[in-house]
Structures are given as C-alpha cells and as structure tokens.
C-alpha cells in the first residue's frame, strides 16, 4: 500500500524508473500476489505503453506486444487462426478475469515452469524482443528462461514483444493442459506440439514442448526425432511418449508426484491424433 506506482506512457518514461530500481509490473496477476506481504518500494506499471501492445504480422513473424492481455490475444485472428496451439493455452490459463489482466510478457518473465503460454511458445520456436534504453535485441525464448523465476534479462531491460515465425498453415498444432480442475488451475503437465507432415502424412518436422516437468519447459528432442520420417499413429506416438518420459525431469510437489507427471507426459502424445480432449 506504501508502494509508489508510476504508469509511464512510453518507453522513454520507463527507463529512468528502472534505473532508480523500480520493479516492473504488467498485469499484476503474479507480482501483486507474490509480493502481497510487502510490495516493492516503486512499481513501474507498463499497461499504458502503447508500443508494448498490438498484434501484427512482420517479416513472416507474428509479433505480439508483451503487454497485450491474454484475453485480447485470444480475440485476435492472427493468434486464433495461425497460432491455435497458443490460443488453446490462453483459453485455459487462469480464468477470464485473470486473462483480462495477465500478459505474455508477464508469463515469460515470471518464468514458472507451469506458465501456460510457455510450452506453446517453445513449440513455436518463439523469440523475445528485449528493449532497454540502449535499444533492442532478440533472443530465442528457449534459453532466455534459465530456471524457475530466472530469465536472462539484463538490468534495465524489459520484454517488449514476442515473435513467432508463422507456422506452415498445414502444420498440426496441438495443446493439452492437465490441471487438477478446469479453471483457476496451475498446470501439472502440459504438452504443446507443432508437427509438419508431408502430403503422405509422413512427419517432416515435429516440435514437442512439455511444461511443468522440469525447471523450464523442455523441448523433447529425442521424441521429436523419433517421429521424423514416420506416420503419426498409435505406435509412433507410444514410442515418442516413451522418449518424452526419458527426457523430462519432473519433481514431486503438492499438486502431483514426479511419477504421475512422467506417466502422463508420455500419455498425452496419444491424444495428438484423437479428437479434442
């Protein structure tokens, strides 16, 4: 309650605040819960900075402003139609009220292994555009998040946008979140898959990202490679599932055991070829 809260209208107004040690807030749905007992002394709220919003196509990428709310992303045709794996995750993130406030940038910087947007973004080979007073730089999301709550943001930097190379329109995109209940649930395991097949149905490229089963989202390369050159059927998916189980590093926690997570993570692949769960 004693926090000083500033709402700059542009990035130029943000940099001095960051230099003075302000803590960045986008939607507030993580920060204000985590820091309930004691808010930071100075909070810099990003929600009025127009350049951090907006969704558009740019050089073969879908560019999503880091402070676009999940709800608005869900409404945008580019996200809905071109990035269904992400749209599906957004649709089951939190609740409608949380989605009206939360942002992609916030989900990324919070860097929870269970962050709902992260597995889809990894499967989409997303990049993040980082901005600071010194300019911008782009890095792959995979690698930007180093562990729970840990990113490679430099001091004075924020996530400005998320860029996703436009997936091939024929690529199959699949997402499933396993939570203890159907809304307001932290993900216990999640699977994001982007799979390109040729006209005969043979897999040309598979990307499989698993959430909540390691200290970061894990792209299961062995499983991905096992699918390349094969048809998507029960047999190939069982094999990929077995590979997934070898590649992930789940932990026991209050919500689920490591054994359960390992079991289910492999199982989820089978639903790639079934109707919606």
């Amino acid at each position, binding site marked *: 309650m004693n926090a000083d809260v500033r709402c700059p209208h542009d990035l130029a107004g943000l940099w001095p605040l960051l230099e003075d040690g302000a803590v960045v807030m986008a939607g507030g749905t993580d920060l204000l819960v985590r820091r309930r007992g004691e808010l930071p002394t100075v909070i810099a709220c990003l929600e009025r900075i127009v350049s951090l919003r907006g969704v558009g196509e740019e050089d073969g990428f879908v560019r999503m402003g880091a402070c676009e709310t999940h709800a608005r992303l869900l409404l945008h045709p580019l996200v809905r139609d071109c990035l269904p794996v992400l749209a599906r995750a957004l649709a089951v993130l939190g609740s409608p009220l949380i989605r009206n406030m939360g942002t992609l940038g916030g989900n990324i910087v919070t860097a929870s292994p269970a962050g709902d947007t992260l597995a889809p973004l990894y499967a989409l080979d997303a990049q993040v555009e980082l901005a600071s007073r010194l300019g911008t730089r782009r890095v792959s999301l995979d690698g930007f998040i180093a562990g729970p709550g840990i990113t490679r943001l430099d001091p004075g930097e924020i996530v400005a946008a998320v860029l996703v190379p436009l997936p091939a329109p024929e690529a199959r995109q699949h997402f499933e979140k396993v939570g203890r209940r159907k809304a307001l649930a932290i993900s216990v395991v999640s699977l994001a898959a982007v799979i390109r097949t040729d006209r005969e149905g043979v897999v040309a490229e598979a990307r499989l990202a698993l959430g909540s089963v390691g200290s970061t989202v894990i792209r299961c390369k062995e499983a991905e490679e096992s699918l390349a050159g094969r048809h998507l059927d029960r047999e190939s998916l069982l094999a990929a599932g077995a590979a997934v189980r070898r590649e992930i590093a789940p932990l026991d926690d209050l919500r689920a055991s490591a054994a359960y997570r390992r079991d289910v993570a492999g199982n*989820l692949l089978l*639903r790639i070829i079934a109707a919606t769960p």
Partner: protein
Amino acid sequence: MSPSAPADPGSFTGMSQNRDPLSKAVGAERYSTDFIPPGCLWAAAKRAGMPHARIVAVHVEEARAVDGVTAVLTRADVPGSNRQGIVHKDQPVLAGDMVRHAGDAVALVVAESREALAEALSRIRLELEPLPGIFDPEDALAPDAPLVHPGRENGNLLARGLVAKGDARQAMRACDVVVEGEFETPMQEHVFLEPPNGTARMTPNGGLEMIVSTQAPFRDRFEIAHALGLDPMRIRVRAPYLGGAFGGKDGATVQCLLALAALKCGGRWVKMCWSREETFLAGYKRHAARMRIRLGASRDGELQALDCVMYLDSGPYAHLGVEIMALGLEHAGGPYHIPHTRLEGFCVYTNNPVGGAFRGFGVVQAGFALERSMDLLASRLVLDPAELRLKNALRTGEQGGAGVTMESPSGVAQCLEAVMTHPVWANRMAWKAKAPPFKRRGVGIAASLNAMGYGRGLPDAAAAKLELTRTGTFKIFNSVPDMGQGNAAAFVQIAATALSQGSSCFELVQPDTRLCLPAGSSSASRTTYTFGNALLRACEAMREKLMARAALVLLADDPSRLRLVPGAVADETTGRSVPLALLGAMLQRDDRICVDQFVMPVVEDPPDTGKEFKLGFPHRFFSHAACVCAVEADELTGGVELVACVTAVECGRVLNPQGVERQVQGAAAQGAGFVLLEKISSEGGRILAGDLSTYLIPTSLDLPDLEWVAVDGDEPSGPSGLKGMGEVGIHGPAPAVAQALEDAVGLKISRIPVEPEDVLRALRGVRT
C-alpha cells in the same frame, strides 16, 4: 452519483425488505464485512504457526512501539476464564503456556490502520519450545502418546460413545456373508466466501455491542461472557446476512478475540477480519475420520448386522465433537433397516486443526463408510447396488440403526425409486458403451438420511416476535441468521400465508439479541422448522388479536366470523372492514406485538443406548435422499469429470420448491468437491494447502447441471408439513462417485478425495 458514506450501525441489520435476493444482487445488502465505521481500530491475532509447543515467552515490546499501534495483548491481559467453547470450554482465547495447534492465537494487536497492524504482527517474536505432537486419532489413544491436555482424566480421549441395538457380534456369526473394510474421510474446509469477521465496541454504560458474521448470536453472548468474565446480558450481538457459513461460523471464531480487543479500545469501534489464509489456519474444519466396518447380510442381501468403529479427529478442542460423533453413530446404519448394530466411536484430541461443525456433520463420514460397505456387499453377492439398497430401505415405522422408530415418514425407498427411474441410472449401460476415445464411463448410486434439529438434551427451541406497525404493516423479528439458506424469505412467506397478507407488507429485522428473542443457532437443518413453527404460533396469536380488536371497531359480537384479508380485517356478513393501518394507529405498542415459542418434539421413548450422549441424541425427524452420479475418467491423465448428478430428496411437504432445489444443488456441489478436489494436505499438524490456489473447490467448469428430483412427503408437525433438509444433499456424491469410478475403471476407493494417480493405477490393473 456521490460516493456514499461507509455504513453506520443504525442503517445496519435494521429493516431489510424481504427482497433480500435483489438487495444482494445489486450489491446493496451490507454484510458484517461491509460495516466499516469511520475511525475504527483494527485487531488481529498472532498465531503460533507450530502445532505443539510450550510457550517460553512472547516478546511484544517491538510491536508495541510501532507507530499507530494502540495495544498488544497476551494471555496475561485476558480477564475471566480465557476459555471459549460451545459445550466444553477448552479453547483459550489467547494461549498462555501451551500451543496446541498451529492456529492457536498467542497475542492480539490493536492498531489504527491495517498497515500498522501488519507491521506490528511481524514484529512479535514468539519463543516456542517445540513438543512432539500427535496427529492421528488412533495413535493419540496409545498410552505413550503425547498429551494435548496434560492432566485430563481420559488423556487424549475426549469422548467414547456406544450405540447398540440387539446383539451385532452374535448376529454377525450367523450371517451368510460378511464384508469388512476400513474407510477414511479427510478434513474439509468450508470456504464460505465471507471470512470470519466482526466489529465491536464497549458501550457508554459498560456493555459490549458487536456486529458479527455468526450463526449463533444468542449463544455467542454466553461464549464471550464466560471467556472474558463479562455479563452475557450486557452483550448485544447483531447478525447480518452471512456470506456463507455451512457450520464454520457456529461457535466463536472472532467473537472472543474481538471482544477482548474492544475492552481495550475505550469505546471505539474495533474491527477484526480474518484473511483467507488465516481462516485456513485457525478456522474450524470438518472432522477427519477413520471407520472400520463389518457388515453382515443373508444370502439374498437382507442386512442383518453392523459392527463399526469410528475415530474422529477433534483437533485440540472439543467444539461440537461429541455431538458430531453422536450424530455420526446415530446415522452409521444409513437409511437402512439393520436389526443388530454395534456402533462405537472415539472422539480424540490431536494437534491437528480444530474439528468443528460442517454441513451434515458426522453423517458425511459415517455415510461414506456405510455406503462403500454396501457396495462391497453388492459386489460379493452379485446384486445390483440399487436393488440392494432398495431392498433394505428403512420404511416408516421401522427402527433405524440406533433403535429409534421412524415415525416421521421415511422416504428412502421413494427417493431410490425416483433416481433409479431417472435416465442417468436407467440408461447407464448404453451411455457407458458410448464412451469416447480414451474415456471410461461409470455410474453410481447412494442413499442417505440426515436428522433435523438438536435431538434430545438441548431444547431445539425458538421464540418469535411479530409486530403490527403503526401503519398496518408487519415486522418479523428474525432470531436465526440467514446464511444463504433463504430462511428470511421463507419466514416472510410463512407469515404472509398465515395472515393472508401480501409479502410486501412484511419487513424482517435481522437477528439482534436486544430486539429479537432467543432461538438457537442457524444450523442442524432446523431453522425453518423450529423458528417457522414459533412464527406460525405468533401469527396465530396475532390473527386472533387483530380479529378481537377489529371486533370492537366493527361492533361484531362474535370475532370468529371476521376474516383477515389483505390490508384489513373484514366482516363478511356485513361487508364492513377495518384497515390494519387503523388498528396499528389505535393500539399501544405492547398490544401490537405477539410473541410465541416452539420446541421441536423429541423422541419420546429413546432407546436404551448411547446414554453417554447428553446432547444431540437421538433425533426424531429425518430427511432422506438418494443420489446418482455419472463420471467420465480419462485414460491418459486419470482426471475424473462429474458428468451428471441427480439427487432425490424427501423432506416432508415442499413449501418452496426453488428453496429446496437450491439447497440440494449447493450441498451436492460441496459433496462433489469433497470427493474429487478438496484436499487440505495436513502433515504433522501443518496445512500445506492453506489458500484457494492449493485447496480447490469446484469452479463452474467442474460441475454439471446438478439435478433435483422432488419426492412427496408430509411431516404433520412441520410448518406447512415441511422438514429441514439443508444438509441431506451433501452425502450422496462421495459414495456415488466412488461406486461410479469402480464401475468405470475398477478403482476401489476407501479414502477420498480421489486422485488422478489412483485412477491411472487402477487402469493399469495395479492394486491400490
């Protein structure tokens, strides 16, 4: 629109038009949390955070020094006995030398602002010497178990109960088949949306007034008085509409701490409002229970004998533990005819969170165990689980498990038949066969009953006051808090019908111990029945009085030929009438008030058993229910979806179908959460799931359209033939879902909640 000033007490819990649903819907209704007097102080407790410890020292100097803090109190500052409790006074207001559960209050801070309050709380240093704790009720009975109340005659045993009929052990030996099992149900958190809270101040003449979210305003006075050495008759408690309670606000939550704070505030208002996390830590819970059952039957499925033992985890304080155990044992035979029963119970102190009242208490636990045992029996005898239940359903005139004859109509068979003919049960084979890929479907059925009222020992009484106002309308002085069950609206409906007036003529004064008459707690499915009956009597007295007074005006020598009509008393033979407004203006206030009372009838010839239960045993009136649940389990995740839930309830005559349906749906939702989602994860006396992100109740996406099927009945002694039924709907889902999952995936559940891991294991054929 100008922002309105925060509520003042005069506008509070005063007149509430019976249109409370609309008032609530527009956000105008003020709850206890919404009473924020300008300049009020704030109070909060510092809690131990450790389940069992000796208090070495409580360092408060730093806290006292915080700017804005007006008092920091410890046990030494508590006058009176420092003991609160509903029946047994065993809970300290502020713990002095011992901490007995992690939520024990050890110090109390009063401050000018919530910021100062939080700051001060963080600066209180507790020096605690941890002691070995005891966290299982059976272990707590071992001779070398750590003692929760050292020096108590029976150690950790709060109470033992034995209810018996016939000779169960003998009869069991002669049974064709005997099934046995051990079952466990966990603690359950109420998660009422409005946390425990209240506002209090000392009055100029040395009394105490309090506005508080409570189910028992009249009893609260005595609990506060005993704890703090005050005169209960100089304590005024007002109970606005509660934002939910379900039993969790029966018995002091904030009351004694708040009163203690008020004593030190020099007449200023002081407010206490628990956070959600504090409510988990310090609030009451449904008792966790373990039950061992042996159930014997003849080859054709006719029940012969039941032998069961029940252990209830009371936490460190009794609350209503003994009464809860009594109710559990009384219901342990379920809604079935069992000639021989031996029902034993142990209610035991531990260092776990405090067990207290929660909708359907004792019955939820015992009912789950008995229903699962019926499923074992059905399985063993290769009988349809519905037919087995129907075969043994208690009929009117038969004896229940405790040996009490069912006088009040027993609608178990009708309830079972109603759900058995419902498509969810009737078409279950076809439905199951159509399971989509990776899904397994199952359907289960359960039956239950729930007593109404307090039972013997404590008079289930209410007194009602009804006033004709000077303008000819009516004021009902409601004595039983409305926690959402809609009793306020029901009372208006009862009075309007009894007095032949439109419901808009009635205003309701919410419970106020100064203005209204004592009427017991809002609990035990009793309020509409007991207070409703008292109100009916007061209405009858009012009717007679109005006719007699009108007769004077109309010069009618025979008042009995007059009739009450909307707004007037009419003489049909002459066509003349007297407006109620005229009578209201004419009569003195004393003459405009009618008071009457009612005591719920009790069992007249109680069986010769359960004698140790002074309070709450046995009961005379029961409502009955049957429930069918359809589930879909996912083969890949083990997740379980409740796809359908149908509950039939027999509760006498239905005064208000919408009112009954709402209670059934709400109770079923809580039962569904109990079996599928709600896990408090208490380990070593520490709650691991202590907030709403970890303790999960169903959201709107986790429940189907819960259905209610009405079953006809009539309880002649009830107002308009009704019986209380607010609790009976909670019992069905847990056993019905358990049976449905056994049907779907072969999982044999004896503990809840069901975990997806359990389902996956069953699917793999791994024995749990």
